[in-house]
């Protein structure tokens, strides 16, 4: 259990560093900055290091990757990990489709709605996951009716629809992170003027979104997506109460029954998150200048 929690914590740690800004002149650190930087690095790095060393000690007396071999060869690991990844990517797509147009519209045309949208986006911090999941089960395990007509059939009856429900719930959970990232990205780039510049050059909405807005939101979308990924892959409560074979519950399970494997898995997922981050960065063309959020 504790290993599972630790794993999620570690996974979240790297994400805030995502909006890298190459091309900026590196600032010289004052002595105190160095001190805080070192303390911060130790705070983040030591548990990771400790977990790593611990994970190597499965074979008594020697350091080996035995725990890794055993953990990774477990079929349940692959199944749950794959399942959670699919959930994570679905969530990212749904969340992006929901949040980007909303934040864009708020910024462009309805700034007075900003407080309301921000408030809604923060709801997951106020409502605990356990409350959310019981609310969802209570609402969607029965047909949802309006004026006697069924609008939504019971969702918890089949795995497919339960997965849909899970993705929807994950989207809600990731809302604060996704909305913040996207909103920050939009604020940094003078959306309104860029939109108008594109319009005056003849561009319609799809062109504006896909050639101007999205590319300049790259690092914001990236960090929002990574945070979402980290949350979903490590999530425990929703998945276990909706009884889906996700990675979070699996980690919790082996945390109760095994000693070294959970540590190994924590390290593996941490590494995979970093790998995903690098891959996305490369795939979306992390070339000169284009990485910056849009301002100099």
């Amino acid at each position, binding site marked *: 259990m504790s290993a599972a929690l630790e794993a999620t914590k570690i996974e979240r740690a790297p994400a805030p560093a995502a909006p890298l800004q190459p091309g900026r002149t590196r600032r010289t650190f004052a002595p105190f900055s160095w001190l805080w930087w070192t303390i911060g690095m130790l705070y983040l790095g030591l548990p990771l290091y400790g977990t790593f060393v611990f994970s190597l000690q499965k074979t008594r007396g020697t350091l080996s990757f035995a725990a890794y071999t055993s953990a990774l060869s477990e079929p349940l690991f692959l199944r749950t990990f794959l399942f959670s990844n699919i959930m994570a990517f679905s969530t990212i797509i749904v969340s992006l489709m929901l949040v980007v147009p909303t934040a864009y519209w708020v910024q462009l045309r309805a700034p007075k709605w900003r407080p309301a949208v921000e408030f809604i986006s923060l709801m997951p911090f106020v409502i605990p996951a356990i409350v959310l999941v019981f609310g969802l089960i209570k609402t969607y395990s029965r047909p949802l009716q309006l004026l006697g007509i069924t609008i939504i059939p019971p969702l918890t009856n089949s795995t497919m629809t339960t997965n849909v429900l899970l993705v929807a719930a994950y989207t809600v959970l990731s809302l604060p992170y996704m909305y913040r990232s996207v909103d920050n990205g939009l604020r940094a780039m*003078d959306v309104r*003027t*860029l939109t108008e510049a594109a319009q*005056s*050059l003849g*561009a319609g909405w799809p*062109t504006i979104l896909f050639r101007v807005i999205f*590319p300049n939101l790259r690092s914001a979308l990236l960090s929002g997506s990574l945070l979402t990924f980290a949350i979903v892959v490590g999530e425990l409560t929703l998945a276990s109460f909706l009884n889906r074979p996700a990675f979070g519950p699996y980690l919790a399970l082996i945390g109760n029954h095994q000693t070294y494997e959970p540590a190994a898995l924590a390290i593996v997922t941490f590494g995979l998150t970093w790998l995903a981050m690098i891959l996305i960065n490369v795939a979306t063309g992390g070339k000169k*200048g284009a990485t*910056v959020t849009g301002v100099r």
Partner: protein
Amino acid sequence: MAFLNLISVSKIYPNALQPAVIDFNLNVEAGEFVSFLGPSGCGKTTTLRMVAGFETPSAGKVLMDGKDITNIRPNQREIGMVFQSYALFPNMSVADNIGFGLKVGGKPVAEIKERVREMLALIKLEELGARYPFQLSGGQQQRVALARALAIRPKLLLLDEPLSALDAKIRVSLRTEIREIQQRLGITTIYVTHDQEEALSLSDRVVVMNNARIEQVGAPFEIYNFPATRFVASFVGTLNTLTAEVVDPATGLLSVHGQPIHAVAPLQEQAGAQVALALRPELLKISTERQGQNGDGDDASENTLKGVIETITFLGSIVRIDVRVGDSVVKLDEFNNPHLKLPKRGDAVTITFGREACLVLDRAARAALPA
């Protein structure tokens, strides 16, 4: 028929206390360079944005080339726009920025390439096509923005305070460049600025605006020399303002620190009223006390004011002289020449000027004066 017609255009923003633009009428000829000049908040940008299509007029119509474009979407108008903040796409190279409009318009790659090259030559940045906007100076960015707007061969070019974010030196050189490019291409242009020097030096015609309305439309020479309203008189040019007291409204007689001054026309104010008297520096002549006695000062059409030299500033082609008259300072300009005999600080002098140099400003116009 003019190329662009704004017919009784008004704009009231929702929830706004006052209209942003009221009954704006203007005809712009093809190839003409027209400036909107006025203080901040007077409605210049709003008017420009209605031409561009980013705002819909609350009333009135916009015609371009005889066609009603009032409700046409901005991306269908073929109007180029340059913004104060440059608004280059940060994710695209200079060449891609310039080619954006052509790419959107589905032009063949070879044609886009050729046009981009042409545009880079036009703004004299041939070497910088591969750079990204953040690698350029402000002046270079704004030139790229201009090239980007022109690349699509727009029917109309709109510029909203394009030079305001730049420093003074670049502002002047880029101003000249904009005018040259505009004349070479013969493109109809509307230029928004709050800087009278920019408006006067660039434009074929200037539209002076105040409080959501047009005050005057005219060539720079007309606007400067024959301001139609007191606001225009006070907003355009460098003015000396002196407090004067009305002595005889019927003959236009005023008193400035006890010295009689004749205005060119009768006054509306009552005798004894305090008014502001505005004098253009370049319409004032100066003579020392001795010179003042040789007779031409007695010319009945000339006004005189006695004062004391306070400072003399050498500005190159002109020399600016500050003369203290009572509790005010009157600035006047002399053209520099090697034979110029300049008075010294502390000399008693007489300032001479014709009656037509006297502009009597009302309270509203005084309020609009820069402090």
